[in-house]
């Protein structure tokens, strides 16, 4: 097996090492732009991590224990994202790639194919992530003035195994998903897994609520730098996210024994889950490959009942518009990865909505206007971030997903501008409606003035982000990639994401003072001068939205008309 692995790995690395240099003006500009955006964000991550630590330790004086518990919660969410992302991406790399068909037709052990493809997938999809994690670690290490040993240890012994463990959990869940799907069907399996997924999130946040932690620790003030893990359930402390954050905590306190124990536990966990995955792959990978084929070609799933097809429904739309809209709807709803991801996002939105009522009450009862401002801005960040996430996931791949069938549209007597306009209408209305829904729920108990302003912010964000993401998707178009998840996790998508974060940071920076003044005035019984204060913010964001919208529209049209 090792000989096989070495052979496969050698050629895999060899193909990765070949540089694909293209000396075209547009690609040089694209690469310089990417390099610039990446560098900017690496620096930003480095600085933000230091500022965040300073905020917790110096401004709010919450102590080292709470800082690392917050870090643990961050690790938990990060781990969930890695697991979910890996589950979805692994499906395409382990079951839908032509390379798998090639390898499976050769006399190679199934577990060797699994290991190579898993590692390929892991490093391909996580390389950008590691760059930013390193920037964050550098900020952390610099703040606490830690030695070079910390960087090596934290990255190779804690962070890398942590991320790897969650990626393996993603693949194991995928195996389980396929196994159950063959017994009870795909839809029911999705429901069951989504149920347990949300149950685990709810349990986690109930057991380690950040608010409860603060309430339990603050009575010990000023002795808040000691280890308060006895206040929590021991099960929670042994979750990999808290093992990781606690080992950071131990390193800062100089508790080397704890560092070694926690690192060892993380390493053992990684080895355990990976060994389990290899054993499962040895026995089940090929069978699961056949199961996936059976699910794909099952007659029930593939025959279309044309009496119910929306193409036959009478409509008042003109035939071209009608065809384009219906094609978009059908293709979207019949692609499992689109539906699964949308279901996960809807689940997140529902979880947000279920908790947002009490968060608004916390704002109203908060003991200081600063805390009110921070909680309110966090709500805004979540909603705007959701717009970004939805756009990147569903809007960015739109032109690429036309795929090699784009010849059909391009050779039809249809105005390309019309196609772009139709796509713009669909994406603006969908993301706008979701944003409106979220704003409505998150302002039920808050002032009407804030609600009106939040709707304006939503409008500017949708008009900026959605066209920007769409046009970037056309610039980084890849007609050969059929998997929307791989498209939306490509280099172009990462650059787009970073550009969106610039906008998000700008919105929050511009809104901080007016919002803080608003809560300050309310808290001390003054009449807030909110409308006047946000006027200039609205003008700036309005101008940005206007220009981004039109430039993105023009870029999209140009890209849609490119030679294919």
């Amino acid at each position, binding site marked *: 097996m090792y000989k096989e692995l070495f052979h496969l790995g050698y050629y895999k690395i060899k193909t990765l090492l070949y540089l694909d240099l293209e000396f075209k003006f547009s690609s040089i500009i694209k690469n310089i732009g990417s390099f610039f955006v990446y560098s900017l964000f690496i620096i930003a991550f480095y600085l933000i991590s230091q500022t965040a630590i300073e905020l917790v330790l110096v401004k709010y004086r919450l102590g080292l224990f709470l800082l690392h518990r917050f870090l643990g919660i961050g690790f938990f969410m990060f781990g969930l994202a890695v697991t979910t992302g890996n589950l979805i991406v692994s499906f395409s790399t382990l079951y839908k790639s032509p390379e798998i068909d090639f390898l499976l037709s050769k006399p190679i052990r199934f577990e060797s194919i699994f290991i190579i493809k898993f590692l390929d997938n892991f490093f391909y999809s996580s390389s950008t992530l590691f760059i930013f994690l390193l920037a964050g670690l550098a900020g952390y290490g610099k703040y606490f003035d830690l030695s070079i040993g910390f960087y090596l240890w934290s990255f190779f012994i804690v962070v890398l195994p942590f991320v790897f463990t969650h990626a393996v959990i993603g693949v194991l869940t995928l195996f389980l998903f396929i196994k159950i799907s063959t017994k009870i069907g795909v839809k029911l399996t999705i429901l069951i897994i989504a149920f347990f997924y949300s149950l685990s999130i709810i349990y986690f946040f109930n057991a380690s609520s950040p608010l409860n932690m603060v309430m339990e620790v603050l009575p010990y003030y000023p002795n808040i730098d000691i280890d308060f893990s006895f206040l929590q359930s021991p099960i929670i402390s042994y979750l990999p996210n808290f093992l990781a954050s606690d080992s950071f905590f131990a390193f800062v306190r100089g508790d080397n024994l704890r560092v070694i124990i926690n690192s060892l536990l993380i390493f053992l966990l990684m080895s355990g889950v990976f060994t389990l995955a290899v054993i499962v792959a040895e026995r089940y990978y090929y069978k699961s490959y056949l199961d996936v084929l059976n699910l794909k070609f099952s007659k029930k799933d593939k025959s*279309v009942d044309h009496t119910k097809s929306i193409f036959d429904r*009478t409509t008042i739309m003109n035939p071209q518009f009608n*065809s384009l809209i219906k094609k978009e709807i*059908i293709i979207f709803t019949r692609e499992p990865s689109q539906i699964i991801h949308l279901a996960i996002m809807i689940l997140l939105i529902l979880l947000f909505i279920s908790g947002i009522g009490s968060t608004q009450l916390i704002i109203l009862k908060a003991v200081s206007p600063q805390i009110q401002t921070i909680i309110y801005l966090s709500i805004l960040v979540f909603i705007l971030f959701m717009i970004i996430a939805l756009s990147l996931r569903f809007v960015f791949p739109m032109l690429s997903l036309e795929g090699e069938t784009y*010849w*059909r549209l391009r050779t039809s*007597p249809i105005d390309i501008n019309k196609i772009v306009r139709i796509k713009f209408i669909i994406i603006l209305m969908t993301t706008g409606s979701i944003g409106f829904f979220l704003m409505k729920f998150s302002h039920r108990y808050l002032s009407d003035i804030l609600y009106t302003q939040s709707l304006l912010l939503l409008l500017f964000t949708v008009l900026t982000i959605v066209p920007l993401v769409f046009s970037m998707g056309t610039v980084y178009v890849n007609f050969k990639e059929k998997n929307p998840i791989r498209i939306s996790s490509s280099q172009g998508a990462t650059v787009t994401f970073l550009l969106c974060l610039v906008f998000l940071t700008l919105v929050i920076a511009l809104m901080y003072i007016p919002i803080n003044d608003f809560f300050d005035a309310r808290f001390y019984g003054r009449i807030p001068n909110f409308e006047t204060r946000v006027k200039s913010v609205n003008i700036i964001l309005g101008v940005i939205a206007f220009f981004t919208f039109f430039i993105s529209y023009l870029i999209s049209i140009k890209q849609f008309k490119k*030679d294919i």
Partner: protein
Amino acid sequence: MIKVTNLSKSFGNFKALDNISFQLEAGDFAAFLGPNGAGKTTAIKIIAGLLSPLSGNVSIKGFDIKSNPLETKRLIGYIPDQPFLYDKLSGLEFLKFTGGLFGLSKHDIKIRIEETIDLLQLGEWISRRTETYSQGMKQRVSIASSLLSDPDFILVDEPMVGLDPQSANIVKTAFRKKVNEGKTILMSTHSLHIAEEICSHIIILNEGKIIFDDLIDSFKSFQEKEFHNLESFFLEITR
């Protein structure tokens, strides 16, 4: 009917088409021959509107492809070399989608679909998603979608790739029927015997230039003078 004038196209330093011109009339069935990389697909893609030319123009029934792209596309049925379809649509849905793109009414779409299903003998598979189709079935659906609007000018890029003898025969019969109805076909192919069997006109491209443009009989008479067969004649002139 279709007039191609001084068409050129480059990809970087590579000149794919070098000032080519030709003209076809209604009822012509032209074979576009030439070795790999001669520029056949490039020329076809420019006429179909998928590539923009460096210089020159294409006019169909008096409509120029640059100034009247929509009108010219309405007159063209383009059949690509690879039959890419939307995996998640059934063949029938793909045909309805195409009918809508050409602005056909629901009634016309229904009638034309019935005609093309019959013409290309698509059968029951038409109701299944195209991701389950064989290469040949995909090719026939792709051809059906291009004939759906009853175009005056049919552009075909290597139509027989991946087709079994039965399917190839169905496609050839369909093309002959269209030519008999007065439609014009320009078909890129590597198969000399298919060109000889069904085409009335031969255009040979080599290194981006037209080196032969005449009727099939003229092509054959050249061959008969000095060569044993079409293949050796073709190999000689494209050497």
